């Protein structure tokens, strides 16, 4: 991903900051600037998530794109945050530890390095809650 495209989302990726529609109360992560329910009558404000959630589904990626090739195998999951929204993220655990319904919490981790520019991309991963 280009450096500028990554930089634009640094606050959101680093701090798990999404948005909330104060009209209907719905939370969004990844952040949205337009509420799909209220559309233009929705008022959107930033919202920092607690980072706790549950694995909805997952897989173990064993064949990746070039950028992620040397980190395989890795666990990729759809996590439902306790506030409601879902996101796609890696879970830092062994493949055999992953399961649907497991409780996880967010951590700040290195996600990948851009092959061409060498930029290290940090972001949110999850770890199992003991």
């Amino acid at each position, binding site marked *: 991903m280009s450096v500028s495209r990554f930089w634009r989302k640094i606050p959101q*990726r680093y701090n798990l900051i999404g948005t909330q529609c104060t009209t209907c109360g719905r939370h969004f992560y990844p952040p949205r600037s337009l509420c799909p329910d209220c559309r233009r009558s929705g008022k959107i404000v930033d919202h920092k998530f607690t980072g706790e959630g549950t694995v909805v*589904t997952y897989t173990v990626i064993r064949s990746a794109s070039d950028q992620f090739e040397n*980190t395989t195998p890795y666990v990729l999951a759809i996590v439902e945050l306790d506030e409601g929204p879902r996101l796609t993220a890696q879970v830092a655990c062994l493949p055999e530890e992953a399961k649907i319904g497991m409780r996880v919490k967010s951590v700040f981790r290195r996600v990948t390095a851009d092959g061409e520019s060498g930029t290290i991309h940090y972001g949110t991963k999850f770890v199992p809650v003991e």
Partner: protein
Amino acid sequence: MRDVAVIGVGCTDFGEHWSTSFRDLFVKAGTLALEDAGVSGEKIDALYVGNMSAGRFVEQEHIGALIADYAGLATNNVPSTRVEAACASGGLAFRQAVIAVASGMEDVVVAAGVEKMTDVGTGASVDMLASAADREWEGFAGATFPGLYAMIANDYMHRYPLTREQLAQVAVKNHENGSKNPIAQFRNRITVDTVLSSSLVADPLRLFDCSPITDGAAAVVVVPLERAHEFTDSPVKVLASAQASDTIALHDRRDISTLDASVAAGKRAFAQAGLTHKDIDLVEVHDCFTIAEICAIEDLGFCKKGEAGRLTEEGATALNGELPVNTSGGLKACGHPVGATGIKQICEVVTQLRGEAAGRQVDAEIGMTHNVGGTGATVVVHILGA
């Protein structure tokens, strides 16, 4: 609106075309379709070309113009438009052609699809295909396209009684059909064991659960039904053309293992045609992964959620079954040149309805196609009748 008919189809061999260029692939398919339709170049009013990612696979954009030029149509100044909706690009190009003819705006229209995927390495093509999903919030985290469908499969198998063996049966059936299709990339029969002993790509999906990387092109010619007999004695009527959208990211779906866009497009198509599931004699569905065929059969309403695995195992979707699914071999065995797939599906149904499918021929008067972009963010469904 006017009724629309398909009067000609053409398809290249699907596979690895090391010595054929992107543009030459299209020219071959286009020429076959025009010959089949008995149409000469000067009769063509417009061209719609489905293509997902020539900019990355062959580093060429401005595909509409390129195709018009090499099809010999630039000298006539024929309008040519590229249509993009990831793996649904072909189906959508067909829909644009149908809309153009139905509206009365254009009369003789070519809808085509083309993709040349083998000029780049596997890691690069994995990355390009991942762009059919949400690059910033799925791809960034390391999601691959097989990985996203694998998450659908795990969710599905957690909630419904689908066995790993039943999933493998989808690939076995589609290879059996592909073995009877001369253009198919894979014409070898396989067993459940072949699938289950192939390498894991993204758990629980293995290599033989996945459609391959493919080069290929397909083209069809559509005209107003009232003019079809100027060209052919066996026009195939377009009974419905429906499209639906859903969220780009899988994590935002209402239900991870139901493609709501398939449900919506399917319902719209049945309503347009005034038909029910019982009227459909065969269906070409988007089986980019084995789990996708299971979901498609259910989401289009051919059975209840959770039943497609059992029906596949029992042979209901085989060539001689109650509802033949993917008589061409599907994306799995026929191959999946992403932009061309939706047009190839139309070609297969037309070929079946005309009774020209030889060893894989089924008894059919009405057929359906189902073409998915990404993990279900775009779905295009067509119903065709002899």
